[in-house]
């Protein structure tokens, strides 16, 4: 297998959406890095984003997130996998990716849109052994949707 085509992220943005009884919180990182290597048929990819680069509308909450995710110990979230080269030309596609978050790797189905310019997945916090924050005994929802905006350049 030869790398016939390599794409690098020129602009990468990731947003997570945390849901709680009274509110939905979102935080965005503009420091997503990524690369896709393709041979004739198959592409492999790696996306990486520093945990501390996610910023919400509240600096206090971001500090709490760093503690909950143990960002000092596990500073980067990565997603990697392989897919058929034709995916890069499709408006909609689903691929598998191995997400390493909080030191625990789990396979997810990622939905791709607009020729892999947009992606989303739903993180499972319990699967990554995240001790979910709570208020009055009510924890935040286990499922955390994540959206990615990705601009690739050859």
């Amino acid at each position, binding site marked *: *297998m*030869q*790398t016939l085509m390599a794409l690098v992220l020129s602009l990468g943005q990731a947003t997570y959406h945390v849901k709680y009884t*009274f*509110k*939905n*919180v979102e935080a965005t990182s503009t420091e997503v*890095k*990524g*690369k896709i*290597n*393709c*041979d004739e048929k*198959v592409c*492999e*990819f*790696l996306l*990486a984003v*520093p945990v501390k680069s996610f*910023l*919400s*509308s*509240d*600096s*206090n*909450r971001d*500090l*709490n997130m*760093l*503690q909950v995710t143990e960002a*000092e*110990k*596990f*500073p*980067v979230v*990565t997603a*990697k996998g392989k897919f058929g080269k034709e995916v890069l030309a499709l408006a909609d596609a689903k691929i598998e990716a191995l997400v390493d978050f909080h030191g625990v790797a789990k396979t997810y189905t990622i939905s791709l849109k607009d020729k892999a310019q947009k992606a989303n997945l739903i993180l499972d916090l319990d699967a990554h052994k995240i001790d979910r924050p709570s*208020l*009055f005994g009510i924890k935040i929802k286990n499922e955390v949707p994540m959206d990615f905006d990705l601009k690739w350049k050859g």
Partner: protein
Amino acid sequence: MKSLLVLMVLFFSQMALADISLEELGVNAEAPKKEPSFSASQMRLRTEKLKTHEVLGLITLGAMTATYFTGGSAMDNNTHMYLGMTTAALYMTTAYYSLTAPKPMGVVDRGRIKWHKGLAWVHFPAMILTPILGYMYKRHEEDGKKHGSLESQHSTVATILYGSFAISAALMVVEF
């Protein structure tokens, strides 16, 4: 011929699909080796104190609501006064947990927390003033004396206290 073959193998092995590394992306996934300026135990203490602050704040808001709405019967019985004393004690305890929570150096307040803290400059003086004015009002009422202009503002100051405190709490609990 043999060396040419080796060169070709080397060339094509470099071209093959190999796992992309984080180094290629310029990302360092290693945890920093040096001790962090803000230790994990300090971070835990911060979280515990702020969580207590959050829960006590909401309990204080409940007590404050009860105090506010019993104001009308303050001259008939002491319920309003006792509720006010409870609210003041809860308020000070809530403030204690916030003020003593350690904070990492260099962290700049951003977003809602800035408004939350800013509103303390309104509700803290109001919290000091409200019970004093209430006490003065009740004493003068019981002694049959004329009310001063300041103590007559007890309910106005209480409204400012209740409003600013409720907004401050809502900023942290509800997403607008």
